[in-house]
């Protein structure tokens, strides 16, 4: 009997000690299992990169090549985010911003010749090459971050006339959710867009935030397009191209070049 009780307590102690061996950092997208360290965030100032994004016009936006960028993982828990910022000059007209994070939401779907989504019988869904990118935009003077160093937002604080501290969100990039309410963002691998009025000769800042990066390589590719004019009513995976990795030859069926091409152009 004593042996049984001792065994029970020994097992209990082992179970308790096993709990001490868990390292929650392995669950973080910024954790590097090879070095045991947390990867630093990537903050990119797109105003200072070569081949910086340019502002297109509404008439030729279909011919305008999107900028293809790449971001590392964020440390969501601490609010230290990877992201990039772009400064554009207001013209007095409306500006449209589109982004498309890597890569395709459902790899086992594709567009048929009529443009309708259908099943791709040769592919399974592969979510591990997908990430999520969100965006804000507003007057550059309201931006609280430092381009190239630290991501910020457009939330500002003030004390009102009754002496109460208040917060006001001056983000102009307002997207609707499924219920038509402002404040929504698209999820994994899904494009987003927004448009907003601008004042002439006034700088505006677009801020892109890596919410999640692909599990397979911890690097999020994205496509970005900015043009002067109204956004279209809808966009899809095929509106902006280039937000994907190029797999090794023979990985995809029928030697298709990449998952985005497979989704948009079929087999």
């Amino acid at each position, binding site marked *: 009997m004593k042996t049984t009780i001792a065994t029970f307590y020994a097992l209990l102690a082992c179970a308790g000690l096993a709990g001490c061996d868990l390292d929650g950092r392995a669950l973080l997208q910024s954790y590097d299992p090879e070095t045991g360290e947390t990867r630093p965030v990537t903050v990119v100032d797109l105003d200072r990169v070569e081949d910086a994004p340019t502002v297109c016009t509404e008439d030729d936006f279909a011919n305008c090549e999107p900028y293809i960028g790449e971001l590392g993982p964020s440390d969501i828990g601490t609010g230290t985010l990877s992201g990039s910022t772009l400064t554009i000059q207001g013209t007095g007209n409306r500006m449209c911003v589109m982004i498309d994070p890597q890569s395709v939401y459902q790899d086992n779907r594709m567009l048929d010749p009529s443009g309708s989504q259908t099943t791709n019988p040769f592919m399974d869904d592969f979510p591990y090459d997908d990430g999520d990118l969100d965006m804000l935009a507003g007057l550059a003077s309201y931006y609280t971050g430092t381009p190239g160093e630290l991501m910020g937002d457009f939330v500002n604080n003030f004390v*009102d*006339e*009754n*002496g*109460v501290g*208040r917060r*006001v*969100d*001056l*983000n*102009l*990039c*307002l997207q609707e959710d*499924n*219920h*038509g*309410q*402002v404040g929504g963002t698209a999820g994994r691998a899904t494009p987003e867009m927004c448009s*907003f*009025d601008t004042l002439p000769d006034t700088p505006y800042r677009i801020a892109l935030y890596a919410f999640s990066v692909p599990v397979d390589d911890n690097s999020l590719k994205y496509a970005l397009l900015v043009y002067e004019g109204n956004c279209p009513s809808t966009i899809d995976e095929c509106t902006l191209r280039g937000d994907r990795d190029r797999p090794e030859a023979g990985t995809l069926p029928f030697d298709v070049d990449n998952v985005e091409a497979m989704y948009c152009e079929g087999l």
Partner: protein
Amino acid sequence: MSSRVAVALAATLLAGCWQEELPEQNLSGTIVVPADVVEDSRDIGMAYIGVFEAWDPEQLGYSYPATGPRVGDNPLGDTQPYGGTTVGEYAYPCMRALRCSILTGRYTTIDDLLDANPVTTDDGELMTTEQFYDQCQWYYGWNLVEEFSFLGEDGIDFTKNDDGDWEAEFLAWHTQIPAGSVLWGFVDNDFTSCSIDQGSINRRRSDDGQFFREGSNFPDVLNFPDKYITDGDLVSSQVTTIEADKADGYELRLDQMLD
């Protein structure tokens, strides 16, 4: 040993008496709708009451809270309320024909509700009390009229006061009420503040195979009241100023009908 337990117990009990000095308080009072503006209390729509930084009767040409800067495509700035509440809430009255048009606290009986909101059936006949009861019994599983959450004498919000006007109590939970802020409100008589895309999903979806929502108010009504105020709605022509260290006993008159 027992004395240590007693001390620990006393400390625990005292901890429950700790004053946290939270800025949010429960604000209570009454709203009054003049009887010469609305004759039948069943016609009083959803009443929204908010606590705001200041009052601005000039911007829109009618009584309205002061707003922050206009951001994005919003036609007006955010009123940035400190808090607020409603008198009544949107109820789903068992059928889509009446979705977003029935409030709690307005009707005593099924006849009372159908009298103010007649429903025509597929046969072209007016819905009877029995048919309405059967529909609610099927939809919610209620077996007594007392279970109908949007009916009942006890739940009626508006009653006649000594002046013959309609009066209802309100309670705004956990609201900041700095001295100098103002109490302002409006009554949405045509239910534009109700969204058919909000609220619970059809709870009989597994039976009828239909997806719809039961309807509920938009979440930004107090932030952007102008989006929902239309002709025929009531606003408070004057505001009530919040006083220091006073959280109850306020009165707000919703007396101006917009046209």
